[in-house]
């Protein structure tokens, strides 16, 4: 009936000779998984390098209330990240980064809903949820742009760049730029990929293909970006 099915003599072929898909996952999905594994190594290396650098500096000892920025010890993150847009001068530690986490988790949920709609061949629902996911990604990028700008300009001190910063040792700002920057670049690439798949959905390309597996593949990438943020949130902002 279906004119797209290709019959392979499955009985004679071994699993790895093309008879069936290894690990019951399509080539594209499997390769996306292995790519993400390698990407996980890269991010782990960055975060562990942060841990190592932090261990090689003295930690701040004393009451949180008396904390002042100094080159002598590693800064307490909740004292660095306490600004929220439109609430100038109000100390709201980690609130903005909490909002960013919330946005990214939500956009991950809308991505799962897009994948689910794809399984049902529901083109309109895929479009809707992909659009929400893209919107979430763009909002996150906007938040990060604001946070970077605030971090660079500082609170009346010298601000921050790769060689000096008002918050603590130079490595603190360097690692902030590296880790959140590398993650932000992943979010940006994710938004671009999501947009391409959204476009292919709207023009009916995926529907013609008969399945929405591309949505699943970019979905894997998007969830990975969310996963990395969970780790960045813990090890950069909380600990």
């Amino acid at each position, binding site marked *: 009936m279906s004119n797209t099915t290709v019959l392979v003599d499955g009985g004679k072929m071994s699993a790895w000779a093309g008879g069936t898909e290894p690990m019951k996952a399509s080539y594209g999905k499997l390769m996306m998984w292995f790519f993400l594994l390698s990407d996980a*190594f890269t991010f782990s*290396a960055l975060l562990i390098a942060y841990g190592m650098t932090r261990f090689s500096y003295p930690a701040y000892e004393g009451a949180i209330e008396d904390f002042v920025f100094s080159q002598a010890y590693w800064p307490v993150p909740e004292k660095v990240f306490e600004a929220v847009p439109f609430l100038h001068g109000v100390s709201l530690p980690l609130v903005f980064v909490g909002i960013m986490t919330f946005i990214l*988790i939500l956009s991950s949920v809308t991505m799962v809903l897009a994948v689910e709609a794809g399984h049902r061949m*529901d083109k309109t629902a895929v479009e809707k949820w992909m659009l929400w996911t893209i919107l979430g990604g763009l909002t996150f990028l906007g938040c990060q742009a604001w946070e970077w700008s605030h971090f660079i300009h500082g609170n009346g001190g010298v601000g921050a760049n790769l060689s000096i910063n008002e918050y603590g040792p130079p490595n603190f700002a360097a690692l902030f730029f590296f880790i959140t920057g590398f993650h932000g670049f992943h979010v940006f690439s994710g938004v671009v990929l999501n947009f391409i798949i959204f476009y292919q959905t709207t023009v009916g390309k995926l*529907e013609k293909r008969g399945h929405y597996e591309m949505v699943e593949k970019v*979905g894997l990438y998007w969830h990975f970006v969310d*996963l990395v943020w969970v780790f960045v949130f*813990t090890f950069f902002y909380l600990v």
Partner: protein
Amino acid sequence: MEHHDNTPQIEVQPADKAKIWGIWKVMLILLAVTAVEFVIAFTMESGAIKTFIFVILTIVKAFYIVGQFMHLSHEKKSLIWAILLPTMFIVFLLFILSYQGSAIFSLLY
């Protein structure tokens, strides 16, 4: 053979309410864990125990994201292990570089 129409009949299947609810439930768990982390961040003295709790809660979140959102829990056993086993190199790197960091610290201070 008769020529087939190029546009196949698309049958949109209805959404499974229970499945959709399951997705939102995972989100609620993730948000709840994040909220707990937030509370701990401001109420606990910093130290090894606090870091340990954060690590555990982060792994809980990672478990839900990778297992449910990325669907890994529902894949073949071989695929699950192919992804999970190599991450032990990360644990290895974590140990050697923490050691290295303390070594640099004791050299400098």
